[in-house]
């Protein structure tokens, strides 16, 4: 059923962040969302799980309009969605293993043994084997980020939202995370939205691209289409040429 964002508006006080953004991630597809720093990508992503309420427009996830859901229905929907926070947002009063198990206790029917197995498996997938007893404060930024990914995928959700999953990782780990995103999509049929600034990684995982610029969707199309795009904003962004962006404004 996928994820559909329709004409999303959001402002914080006088600051307009989203100004009619629309995009769609079809079922089983991985959509990469590009956009400059501070363009509102994280804000957009938070609307998808009801962490923020749109000023106007709507978000449809799994066939349900998020902002109209009652609390119970919202929790039901969230059980199907995994969210990787930009800054990991690990619970710092718990160990890594407990962090990863949190979702499982709430979202799955696994018993304690099953949960422990799943936690080990997920930590292995993000190359954090043996770190289960560590507290988040004892980890590096990249390790924390990976633990956040492990926590999001642990419940094997239908939808996965990644907010910059590879930022701050070394190239090897980055490639490993890309592999993981691909596997989730291919083996489990996950519908994913990936926010990233890393173009290599973007082209590795993307089925489609969208670009958020000035609160609106500047570009929406396949990897081939974005490579062929003539739009100076898109070109400037993927080639890393600020002069093209300046021309626009």
């Amino acid at each position: 059923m996928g994820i559909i964002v329709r004409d999303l508006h959001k402002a914080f006080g006088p600051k307009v962040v989203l100004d009619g953004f629309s995009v769609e991630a079809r079922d089983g597809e991985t959509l990469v969302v590009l956009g400059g720093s501070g363009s509102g990508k994280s804000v957009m992503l938070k609307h998808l799980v009801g962490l923020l309420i749109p000023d106007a427009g709507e978000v449809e996830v799994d066939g349900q309009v998020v902002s109209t859901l009652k609390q119970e229905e919202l929790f039901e929907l969230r059980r199907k969605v995994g969210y990787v926070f930009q800054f990991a947002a690990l619970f710092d009063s718990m160990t890594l293993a407990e962090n990863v198990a949190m979702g499982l206790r709430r979202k799955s029917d696994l018993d304690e043994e099953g949960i422990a197995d799943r936690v080990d498996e997920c930590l292995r997938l993000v190359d954090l084997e043996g770190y289960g007893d560590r507290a988040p404060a004892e980890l590096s930024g990249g390790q924390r980020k990976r633990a956040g990914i492990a926590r999001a995928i642990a419940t094997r959700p239908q939808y996965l939202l990644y907010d910059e999953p590879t930022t701050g990782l070394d190239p090897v780990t980055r490639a490993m995370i890309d592999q993981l995103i691909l596997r989730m999509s291919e083996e489990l049929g996950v519908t994913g939205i990936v926010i990233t600034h890393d173009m290599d990684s973007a082209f590795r995982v993307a089925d489609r691209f969208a670009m958020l610029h000035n609160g609106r969707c500047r570009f929406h199309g396949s990897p081939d289409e974005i490579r062929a795009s003539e739009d100076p904003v898109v070109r400037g962004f993927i080639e890393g040429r600020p002069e093209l962006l300046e021309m626009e404004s």
Partner: protein
Amino acid sequence: MQPLLKPFAMLGQGGVPFAAGIGRWGQLTADTVRAVRHVDVWLRLLLPQMARVGVDSVPIALFIALFTGIVLALQASYTFTGAIPLYFVGVLVGKTMMLELGPVLTGLALSGRVGANIAAEIGTMRVTEQIDALETLAYPPVAYLVVPRALAGIIMFPVVTALAIGMGIVAGWITAIQLLDMSSADFFNGLTLFFLPFDVTYAMIKATSFGFIVTSIGCFFGFHTKGGAEGVGDATTRAVVASSMAILVLNAFWAIVLL
């Protein structure tokens, strides 16, 4: 605007956010009551919170009560010199500890300890998106964070207060027999003379309400924390100030309603 009117205008400007704050606190309280139904979410967390709110607060509460009891006994004997028999020291220590100082001093001490702790913890969780993370993991944050803390407060404040009252009375008694040349019989005669079982009920009602007010205000300011470390510090200070004031107001409220 005329300079003379300025203070009133400022008062008015302060009044609106204050009323709005009370309203949002009421909202959180209503949410908390509703969230109690998610027993599976908060039950596991209750005992650790009871340990933090209650057990960890016992030493400070006993410490305060110890010195309060001593001072009460000494001041009572100083005040009553002459016309009034010394056994009134027992009356005063017992009545004051039970009706007023036991619950209120414990409440104030715990508003600093527990209220600040809760506001800082939840505030940090707010600014580091841990509360958002809770939501995405399908945990209702109020049931996960507020309910166990509020329940722990409601259960443990009376417990700590009871121990503090006991400590205060024992301290008063020891002071009376060691420093005031009274007999134990005198002291306990005074203690029992005007005692009513309602005194204990009254103290427990007060402590229970303080437990709820301190924890829920701590949670409230934590939940509405904005910004980073500074926001957390700010929330903590406000939580302590607001819950101390709320304790004093509530204390007067109970005195009017129940006495």
